[in-house]
């Protein structure tokens, strides 16, 4: 029986973007159906339509044979659809129980009924969670379970998971998959959004590939190979291999010695990290998000105060110096969020000046003419697609924004580059471009500190790898000395 079927679903956003150009496929009851596609393929848009969050421009959706016209998520929930977002929608200061009760009151369940049903569900599915713990105390994997339980309590028959593994450690992923299989065997229909081939292979029964708002095909997972899937997803062979020249590293540029940094909540986020980055070398910091990478980088750059330890750049101690001073000593920093590294409302010329104001001013006056020339040069040499330098940066696609930001920082001719998640949210072509540029930088003798939660990226780029876990660098060495399994274990906190 068909649980959900999409018929020619189209979505045009008010700004004229075609997100979905007629999508048709169906999801069988009791299967795990993968929805595979790159960023911007339309996966999330389609699921938000199914969840009643946005309205389609055209087409029909049937849920268990009945045509669905949702005016909001509440209608979708009534029709038996549950959604687990990448970013959880839980009240931090509430206990698990309170969160679930909160989400169930609208369907008329009181606390007793909810608890009874939860006891049954936890027994039946193996989704063990501490019901009376505050959500803020729970690790990410546990929070995700709460989200799933929330949907199940509301008697969801179709569960949508949006990139559920992106925040999890390998161990948590394994647990999640175990639970999902069990739920499927009990008859639940699961739609699993992802862009990771490995996950499609591991967990899905069937898979639908979306590319630029169209369905490329729906297949039984066992009947299609990874290479075929990759080809369907990107429309060409993925260039997985980047050629690396052998470069022997020179003298150390960045030295971090026993650095201790407090996080926003006043708890130690970095607990005595030490590392060295030398000329012509990429050091990749691997780790699950939130293990102190952000705080480490911010302390090096001078955005955050380090409580203890030393940061030495080019032989000069710069611990606790102002960010601009650190930049002046030859550090370029590419932050993980484009809305931080760029001012979205400002145009390209204005954004050039952001980190380079000294270079483009004489006295108190900014020299816009020279800044414009520089913007033009960056746009040309980094293939930024934009029709005018006066366009607000926010209008550019993510890939072009990233290229521009990268271009701005590289053109400063720094001796040390710190890149945080440099390809986060980019499509394959832009990812490849950015990674190649970073390798070129290394070949030209720059020292590069890469922070990435994308293991492929860490392996492709790094000469040496450091794994961060709970504020400590728990392993460090040449990339050859790490296997995927070993890193996976290390990221999960298991010393290997």
């Amino acid at each position, binding site marked *: 029986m068909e649980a959900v079927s999409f018929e020619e679903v189209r979505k045009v956003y008010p700004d004229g973007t075609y997100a979905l150009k007629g999508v048709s496929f169906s999801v069988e009851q009791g299967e795990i159906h993968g929805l595979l596609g790159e960023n911007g393929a339309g996966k999330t848009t389609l699921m938000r339509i199914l969840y009643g969050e946005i309205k389609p421009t055209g087409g029909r959706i049937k849920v268990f044979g009945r045509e669905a016209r949702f005016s909001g998520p509440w209608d979708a929930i009534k029709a038996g659809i549950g959604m687990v977002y990448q970013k959880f929608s839980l009240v931090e200061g509430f206990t698990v129980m309170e969160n679930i009760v909160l989400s169930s009151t609208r369907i008329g369940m009181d606390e007793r009924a909810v608890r009874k049903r939860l006891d049954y569900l936890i027994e039946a599915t193996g989704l063990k969670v501490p019901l009376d713990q505050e959500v803020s105390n729970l690790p990410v994997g546990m929070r995700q379970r709460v989200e799933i339980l929330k949907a199940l309590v509301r008697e969801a028959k179709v569960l949508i998971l949006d990139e559920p593994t992106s925040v999890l450690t390998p161990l948590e992923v394994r647990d999640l998959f175990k639970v999902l299989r069990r739920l499927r065997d009990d008859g639940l229909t699961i739609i699993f959004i992802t862009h990771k081939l490995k996950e499609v292979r591991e967990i899905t029964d069937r898979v639908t590939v979306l590319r630029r708002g169209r369905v490329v095909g729906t297949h039984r997972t066992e009947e299609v190979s990874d290479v075929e899937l990759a080809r369907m997803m990107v429309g060409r062979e993925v260039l997985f291999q980047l050629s690396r020249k052998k470069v022997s590293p020179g003298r150390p540029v960045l030295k971090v010695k026993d650095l201790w940094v407090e996080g*926003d909540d006043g708890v130690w986020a970095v607990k005595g990290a030490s590392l060295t980055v030398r000329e012509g070398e990429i050091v990749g910091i691997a780790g699950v998000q939130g293990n102190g990478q952000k705080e480490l980088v911010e302390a090096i750059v*001078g*955005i955050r105060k380090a409580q203890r330890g030393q940061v030495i750049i080019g032989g000069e101690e710069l611990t606790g110096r*102002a*960010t*601009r*001073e*650190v*930049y002046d000593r030859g550090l370029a*920093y590419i*932050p993980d*969020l484009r*809305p*931080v*590294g*760029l*001012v*979205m*409302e*400002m145009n390209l010329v*204005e954004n050039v*000046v*952001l*980190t380079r*104001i000294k270079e483009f*001013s004489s006295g*108190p*006056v*900014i020299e*816009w003419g020279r800044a414009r020339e520089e913007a033009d040069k960056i746009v040309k040499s980094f293939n930024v697609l934009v029709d*005018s330098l*006066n*366009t607000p940066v926010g209008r550019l696609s993510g890939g072009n924004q990233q290229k521009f930001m990268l271009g701005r920082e590289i053109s400063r001719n720094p001796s040390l580059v710190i890149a945080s998640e440099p390809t986060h949210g980019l499509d394959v072509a832009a990812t490849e471009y950015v990674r190649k540029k970073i390798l070129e930088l290394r070949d030209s003798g720059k020292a590069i500190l890469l922070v990435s939660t994308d293991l492929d990226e860490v392996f492709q780029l790094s000469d040496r790898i450091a794994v961060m876990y709970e504020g400590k660098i728990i392993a460090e060495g040449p990339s050859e000395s790490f296997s995927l399994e070993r890193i996976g274990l290390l990221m999960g906190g298991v010393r290997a």
Partner: protein
Amino acid sequence: MLREYLQFVLEVIGSVLAGFSVAALIMSLMGFDPLKGLYLITLGGLSDPDYLLSRSSLIMMTGLAFSVPALASAFNIGGEGQMYVGGLVALAVSLYSPNPLLPLASGALAGGLVGLVIGALRAYREVNEVITAIMMNWTFYYLSIYLITTYLYNPLAPYRSVSVPEGSRLSTIDLSGVKLHVSFLVSIALALVAYFLVYHTKLGYEIRVSGLSRRSAVYAGINPRRTFTLSMALGGVFGGFSGALNVIGFTYYMDQLLTSMYGMGFDGIGVALMGRNNPIGIILSSIFFSMLLLGGQRMQVSMNVPKELTDALSGVIIISLAMPYAYRMLISYLRVRKVGRGAE
């Protein structure tokens, strides 16, 4: 780029049409001739260009007092109080100074100091600048009245202060028959300076970056607290200058109830929003704003329309012109606040 200009032009045309139709509707409902009314309220003010331009120079300055801080995402509702202080200090200094320059400068500085305090309290002590500013407005209102009626009162005309000595006054110049207030020219020059400051200097750039994205500012090594405070101080300078200009350039004294100033600080908010917080736009909007005010007065006289109604009519037109921008500004203001909290 073209799209933005087109959008802007359409926005203005739409706003004007909307404002005028509502105003016309109100007038016909109240039994007045809407066409004659609209004609008078918009163009009636042109009959007295001298008064028109002098009035617009004052609200041009209070407009800048609001808009420069607004670019740093600070809400300076204290232009009113800064203006009182500026006027008062300028008056006091003029009594001892033989030229207009020193009183003007000290009035502006005094206003700037008030802005600085409000800004610093917010930036470094988390005291909401709107509340501080409103409290200061009243404090300085009564302080001014107190000083005017005690130390500065004029024995010959007890309802007002002593006069600015001749040597310290800004007067008019004769441009081949057309009389022009020096004060108006000074205001235009200052607005152009503000434009240069905002769009062509490091400080202006840093103010704008902090206003648009606090986290980007921190990333770029800009200290958002410092830019916030400085933007408020700059706003205060313009507020203070408006008051000083009023005393030194037009009235040459302050009256007991501050009637020649009262409300112009708040008018500046409307002027700033109508001018899209852009100094050049503010030059134009301050003139338009004054046209509406004077036109309203003409309407009262020749059509016997009550003052309350003409004020309401100008209000409708101003609001409809400021609304699209005010809406966007409010949204980004709220957003920056939220982001700012995250980056603390």
